[in-house]
């Protein structure tokens, strides 16, 4: 009330003043400038009389006075807001509501069980607006979020950037955060349509996450979806884009002749006979000269069949055969609107990702639908009904049941260039893997997910609200695997059955997860006098889930065109999987704000989980945070024109974690398996195995986080800076019980609350917003963050290096220090006769093998006792944790045109890669020869059938076609430590808003056209055929995952 009175008094005063000057042509105009979104005064806005030099700025209270004549125009500008123009009329009072262009400190931020003004936040919260996520050609929302939020890093799953790939998210280097959409916990971001997102809040410190207690040990991502606006109008929006995608940093095979020479050299190094016979090499040469010749001949070992692999003579770059251009498209449509009583938002979306695989089916598509209805039933009761639905479908090749999806990448990479594709009869070879991938059937996973939420807000008294919501989520997953029989041809042209693909079979499973959650909470806000603002909240949450799976498979399909269990004739195998889940908790919050200067918040949550034994189930997790808006102090007024905002925030909080704990560790449960690897009485019986070891004391992990943050704005709010530093200590973390002798006979020891870690980090973000002249606006946004995690306590009394140890930095790489390649035979002789490198390998050491540095000066290269105190000649040679991750966004707008550019990367990272994609040579049938692998050591001349000529200053060591011989050189060591730092142009976009002139002729309010490019450039020292984002992932080994892609996208947004 008092503010209103004050305002009224001032208005009256102004009026009096105005009248007194009315006699003059130039009158004194006064007014207030406020932010339209939160109705708060907007300080530092510029008020100018158009065409003159008469300029003033608004004060802290948003007020200004200026002299102007009737008929002149006032232009009010403020960075981040649309310009406001008003003609001076007879009234000398101007009240301007400025419409925000960009998020600023004035915005309202969604936090756990409520909202807060950003200016009054005390914890570490980052906000990402929905606009940042749209118009990106990524299939999933997580890919669009990467690099936009300080402290949040993203990594691909084991399959890399497969169609529909969801990145995993880590806040401050911890595990997967808790994701809440409109108050409802969600397992994955994958089903969320980026176009439905109004905003995201990322709660990073313990104080902001504490209200979610048990579920949120690693921070929270809160997503608020769009609602209709109560403006009495219907708005229809359409957005769509179409992308052409291409693999980037994809390897290529050396031609078959070069590869054959290299294979033969490696075979000779291993003491084996040539991998390619002279006759085969002659055929390869003839074929290369005349590709119309046959790609293969009858096999030497069985002339009825065709020769394969190193015996055939084709010349294929299998990567080019398998991977190429792909298409991806997205369409979204929404209807929204409403009036004072009811608003609605309806949307539908479609994403189709055809992937880059040229052979077989490997694709993803998703449909989304979202309906949200907000109704004010009475003055004191609101109701929200929200239905979200998605349907995704993912197809992958089954690979003849020989391998899982990852087999695709492994098989293509190990197929030699000389393998034939088509036999002289014109039939595709099995060893080209094309029948495996194209004809052997597909795995299909369809997920149907529906979330129905009912929420109500009751306001019994002014300042008191009661919220209750109940949500039910049904997730149904349907998996079908069709496994068909495949054939190639023999020399006579008859079919040859691929035995492993017979019998054909079909496997299916159906999962249903039913999840229910109830939240009830109540908030009471009151003021004591003008300056003391209080708020209190308390609530209860309960969740319960039931999961059940039924799976079955059956052999021998009657026909491959109707694959089903009913149309198969073999025995049926069936299995089930049933489990329940439950947590509950109560929580409360106390908030105090003194005059928007001093802020204090207390949170507490008492949580229980089904996972632990009775007596260990419950934990209490409190937090406290405080803030000081120094720039709201009177003494700041002199500095205010330069430093517009200066706020200090500090928090301490404790969080509980049950996510890492497997349930039932207090019970000795027997293992059960079917299909014993032995036949008794004609059948493979089911059998049981020994019960696990138990630990009845497993309970909550606890982590305490201290966070200190600063929010600053400078130069008329054009420069905004937010920075945070934090330290997170985790206690009673679940670790392996301890390193115990193997005679215990248990491989997976029960977890125990015995480990401690410490993460230290900082985050920095800035935004610079400005305009040059009226039409040109630009902004620069940058984020930079870093963290390191150290294990401070670990049950490893001997310090053995096969497991973690106290003092270990997360991601550290132990290895040997290389000392070049052995250059002379004399050097090699010394090593052999002195058994110097016997600790690495017992094989004979030759020139071109790696020489290792004797760090402990004992004359031998060994792993010592393989402990921290006696690591032999090993030491920490690098760290795989990405350091100094950053994102940089540049934007510019000129009239209807806009341009943006977004770079993302990590400034420091080490990687050790292994396997055939890195080394080229592994063994006879697990090698991949790329041009980059040819820089290997050789000290003999080449001839027509062997070798590539001398190259003693090589990067790679002497190659062998034998795993155990290559082991001499392929141990973890400094010579092959890679610098995995990178900078990537993630996105560049050029867009155009059709001018009003054209729009007026249509019913459209807005037409926006854009073209954008994704992953257009990468700066890194990594080998050309490894992508810095996917190099070390791959279930089948390094580099064996779906390649990263570039995309060129054309898009259009329409608004009616």
């Amino acid at each position: 009330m008092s503010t209103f009175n004050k305002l009224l008094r001032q208005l009256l005063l102004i009026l009096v003043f105005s009248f007194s000057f009315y006699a003059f042509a130039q009158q004194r105009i006064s007014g207030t400038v406020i932010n339209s979104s939160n109705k708060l005064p907007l300080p530092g806005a510029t008020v100018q009389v158009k065409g003159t030099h008469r300029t003033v700025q608004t004060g802290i209270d948003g007020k200004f006075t200026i002299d102007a004549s009737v008929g002149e125009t006032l232009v009010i500008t403020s960075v981040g807001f649309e310009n406001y123009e008003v003609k001076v009329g007879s009234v000398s009072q101007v009240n301007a509501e400025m419409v925000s262009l960009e998020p600023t400190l004035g915005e309202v931020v969604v936090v756990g069980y409520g909202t807060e003004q950003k200016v009054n936040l005390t914890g570490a919260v980052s906000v990402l607006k929905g606009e940042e996520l749209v118009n990106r050609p990524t299939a999933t929302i997580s890919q669009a979020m990467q690099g936009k939020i300080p402290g949040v890093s993203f990594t691909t799953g084991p399959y890399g950037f497969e169609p529909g790939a969801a990145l995993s998210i880590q806040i401050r280097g911890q595990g997967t955060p808790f994701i809440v959409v409109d108050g409802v916990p969600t397992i994955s971001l994958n089903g969320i349509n980026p176009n439905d997102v109004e905003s995201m809040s990322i709660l990073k410190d313990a104080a902001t996450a504490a209200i979610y207690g048990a579920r949120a040990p690693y921070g929270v991502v809160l997503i608020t979806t769009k609602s209709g606006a109560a403006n009495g109008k219907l708005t229809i929006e359409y957005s769509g884009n179409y992308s052409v995608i291409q693999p980037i940093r994809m390897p290529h095979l050396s031609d078959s002749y070069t590869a054959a020479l290299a294979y033969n050299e490696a075979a000779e190094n291993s003491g084996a006979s040539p991998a390619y016979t002279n006759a085969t090499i002659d055929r390869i040469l003839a074929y290369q000269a005349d590709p119309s010749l046959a790609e293969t001949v009858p096999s030497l070992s069985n002339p009825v069949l065709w020769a394969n692999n190193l015996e055939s003579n084709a010349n294929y770059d299998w990567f080019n055969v398998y991977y190429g251009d792909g298409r991806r498209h997205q369409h979204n449509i929404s209807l929204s609107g409403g009036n004072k009583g009811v608003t609605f938002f309806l949307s539908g979306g479609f994403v189709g990702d055809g992937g880059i695989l040229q052979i077989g089916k490997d694709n993803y598509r998703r449909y989304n639908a979202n309906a949200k209805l907000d109704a004010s039933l009475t003055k004191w009761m609101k109701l929200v009904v929200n239905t979200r639905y998605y349907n995704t479908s993912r197809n992958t090749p089954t690979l003849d049941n020989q391998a899982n999806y990852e087999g695709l990448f492994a098989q293509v990479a190990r197929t030699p260039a000389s393998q034939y594709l088509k036999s002289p009869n014109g039939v595709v070879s099995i060893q080209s893997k094309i029948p495996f991938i194209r004809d052997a059937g597909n795995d299909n996973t369809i997920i149907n997910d529906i979330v129905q939420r009912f929420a109500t807000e009751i306001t019994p008294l002014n300042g008191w609200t009661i919220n209750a919501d109940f949500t039910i989520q049904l997730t149904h997953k349907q998996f079908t695997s069709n496994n068909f029989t495949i054939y190639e041809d023999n020399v006579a042209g008859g079919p040859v059955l691929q035995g492993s693909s017979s019998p054909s079979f079909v496997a299916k499973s159906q999962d249903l997860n039913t999840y229910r959650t109830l939240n009830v909470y109540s908030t009471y806000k009151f003021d004591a006098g003008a300056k003391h603002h209080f708020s209190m909240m308390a609530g209860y949450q309960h969740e319960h889930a039931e999961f059940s799976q039924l799976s079955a498979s059956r052999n021998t399909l009657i026909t491959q065109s109707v694959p089903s269990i009913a149309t198969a004739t073999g025995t049926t195998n069936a299995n089930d999987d049933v489990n329940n889940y439950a947590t509950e908790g109560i929580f409360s919050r106390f908030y105090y704000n003194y005059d928007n200067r001093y802020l204090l918040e207390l949170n507490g949550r008492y949580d229980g989980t089904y996972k632990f034994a009775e007596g260990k189930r419950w934990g209490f997790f409190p937090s406290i945070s405080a803030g000081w808006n120094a720039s709201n102090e009177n003494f700041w007024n002199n500095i205010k024109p330069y430093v517009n905002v200066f706020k200090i925030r500090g928090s301490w909080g404790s969080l509980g974690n049950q996510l890492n704990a497997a349930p039932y560790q207090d019970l000795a449960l027997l293992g059960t398996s079917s299909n014993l690897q032995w036949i008794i009485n004609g059948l493979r019986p089911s059998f049981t195995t020994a019960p696990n070891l138990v630990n009845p004391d497993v309970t909550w992990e606890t982590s305490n986080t201290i966070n200190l943050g600063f929010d600053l704005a400078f130069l008329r709010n054009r420069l905004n800076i937010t920075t945070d530093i934090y330290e997170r200590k985790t206690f009673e973390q679940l670790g392996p019980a301890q390193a115990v002798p193997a005679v215990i006979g248990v491989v997976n020891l029960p977890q125990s609350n015995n480990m401690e870690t410490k993460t230290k980090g900082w985050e920095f973000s800035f935004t610079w917003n400005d305009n040059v002249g009226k039409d040109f606006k630009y902004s620069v946004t940058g984020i930079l963050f870093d963290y390191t995690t150290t294990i401070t306590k670990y049950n490893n009394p001997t310090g053995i290096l096969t497991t973690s140890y106290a003092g270990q930095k997360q991601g550290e790489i132990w290895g040997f220090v290389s000392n070049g390649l052995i250059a002379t035979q004399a050097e090699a002789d010394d090593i052999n006769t002195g058994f110097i490198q016997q600790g690495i390998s017992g094989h004979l050491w030759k020139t071109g093998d790696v020489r290792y540095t004797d760090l402990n000066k004992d004359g031998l290269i060994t792993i010592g006792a393989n402990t921290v105190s006696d690591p032999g000649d090993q030491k920490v040679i690098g760290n795989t944790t990405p350091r100094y991750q950053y994102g940089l966004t540049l934007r510019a707008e000129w009239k209807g045109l806009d341009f943006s550019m977004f770079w993302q990367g990590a400034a420091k990272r080490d990687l050790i890669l292994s396997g055939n994609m890195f080394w080229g040579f592994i063994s006879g049938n697990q090698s991949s020869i790329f041009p980059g692998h040819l820089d290997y050591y050789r000290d003999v001349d080449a001839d027509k059938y062997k070798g590539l000529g001398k190259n003693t200053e090589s990067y790679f060591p002497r190659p062998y076609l034998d795993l155990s011989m290559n082991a001499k050189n392929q141990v973890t060591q400094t010579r092959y430590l890679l610098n995995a730092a990178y900078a990537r142009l993630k996105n560049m976009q050029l867009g155009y808003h059709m001018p009003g002139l054209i729009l007026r002729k249509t019913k459209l309010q807005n037409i926006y056209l854009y073209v954008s490019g994704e992953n257009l450039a990468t700066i890194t020292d990594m080998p050309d055929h490894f992508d810095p984002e996917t190099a070390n992932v791959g279930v089948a080994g390094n580099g064996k995952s779906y390649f990263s892609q570039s995309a060129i996208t054309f898009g259009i947004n329409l608004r009616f």
Partner: protein
Amino acid sequence: MKKYIYMVVLVSLVACSKNLDQPPQDQISNSQYWKTAQDLETYMYQFYRVFPHFKNLVNIVPNFFIGNIGSDAVYGSDHQVMTAPATQLNGTGTATTSGGNWNWVNIRSVNIFFENYQKVNDVPGNINHFVGEAHFFKAWLYFEKVRLFGDVPWYTNSMQIDDPALYNPRTKRTEVVDSILWHLDRAVEKLKLRKDAAGTNNRLNKEVALIFKSRVALFEGSWQKYHAGTPFGTAGADPNKYFQSAVDAVTELQTPGKYTVGITNNGKPASDYNSLFSSRDLSASTEIALWCKFDKSQSTWSHNFQQFITRQTNDVNVTYQLIQNYLGTTGLPYDYGSVALTVKGSAFLTKIGTDCDPRLRQVIWIPGQTMWDNSAGTVLFTKPFLDKTGNAKNNTGFQLNKGVDPKDPTAGGALGFATACETGAVIFRYAEALLNYAEAKLELGQAPDYDKSLNLLRSRAGMPDFSVIADVNRLNYADWGYAISDELNEVRRERAVELACEGFRYDDWRRWRAHNLFLQKRPLGFPYLASEYPASLVVPTNADGFVDPFMGIIPGGYNFIVGRDYLESIPINEITLNPNLAQNPGW
């Protein structure tokens, strides 16, 4: 204040809530188990996975499809080699860091059976067989440890994480072996006879336990005898006690009318021996005491064996050192060296295939034999695959065919690289017991009854009866490094021939301390005839014209480290964790 009272009430209500009681719905706890004899049977099934066969060769290359038939090449033997010299023979091993064969999961599992089985309330007749299986497997699992590591800690119970027994030192070797034999005696007592066991010879039975007992006892007797006085010697050694135990086990097996044992002899010396290893069904053979059956329709329970001994070799190559053990058809030593001076290449194979023990033709390919006769056509063997590459390459000229069935649908790779072969795997056969008996009897200084033992094997092969002969060429292939009687030498020869390429050789040379067979020597192949192969093919041969595959790789021969390589290293990590555990000699 009221608010706080309300809070306290709410907290206590929530804490008492039963919402969080969610017991497991698809797992059985230990206290719910161990009720019926069926529970015991279901639990014991898991241990059948320990037997080595085509799909399960413990701790060597997975999917090593030649199974036991090729396992000597991997473990290390003078009779079978691969492209690279075996680590064990060549002294190129390094101490393991962790894991390897030092795996105790199954021993804990069988101890858990002993801790729980008495909870079952049933008559002994219904549970005895399963208890017998547990005794057998405990013995099997510990014998695996003794074979590879020597004396090891003996555990009777499963342990918790804080059990001080985890840090026990090794138990005395004699105590460990005596405990193994004690368990085998219990197994013999409680297991059913082969004819009564559910699953007959796919199931453990008294006969298997007795054969295994003779194996363990013979191994231990010879180890204690021949390693005496070396770093691998046994404190309190008493070799004769164990030789006697081996003899007793076989004598028991020969009790008239009691056990189902015999030597399968259908009067077809050209194929009777081979058919033991090439059949899909061995349930009728009284010789096969235990075998692993394969059936593709049982969730692809099948393998790749026939492909790997026909169209391919999987890099398993028989050596001249084995071949020289085969006697001529007359029962007298055959002078391979003299023959090789004039007859070379394929002709040499043809000649020895005719002149020698018919079992030779059933171990290596002889020109003219049918390799496969099925949907991939009919193909005869003409010459060894010296000129082929990769998995089809042969390095010695003696190309393995033991167990071949040309009619098998997968022979010749007729079904592509397909895991579709159903040839059965022999785990225990009576012939071994007879060889164990003869050897143990001789070691005791007693005369074996050859009519009840080796002559049964000779007769099946169409060879004359066993006789003691003096082979003047013996040092070329049987230079033991110490003197033994001609009779013992001939028994060892018969063992090499009858059990050729079945995975026994690695243990045999180790228990005989016979590194002299190969130390600083190189394995050889057949006498090479260059005109049979393309001129460009380079095959290393020695001065006498024999293929010499390791000539370039180990010019000085095998570099076996005598004071070290008889036992595997205890993983370094285990010694770090338990300083009471002493490392094996030399490591």
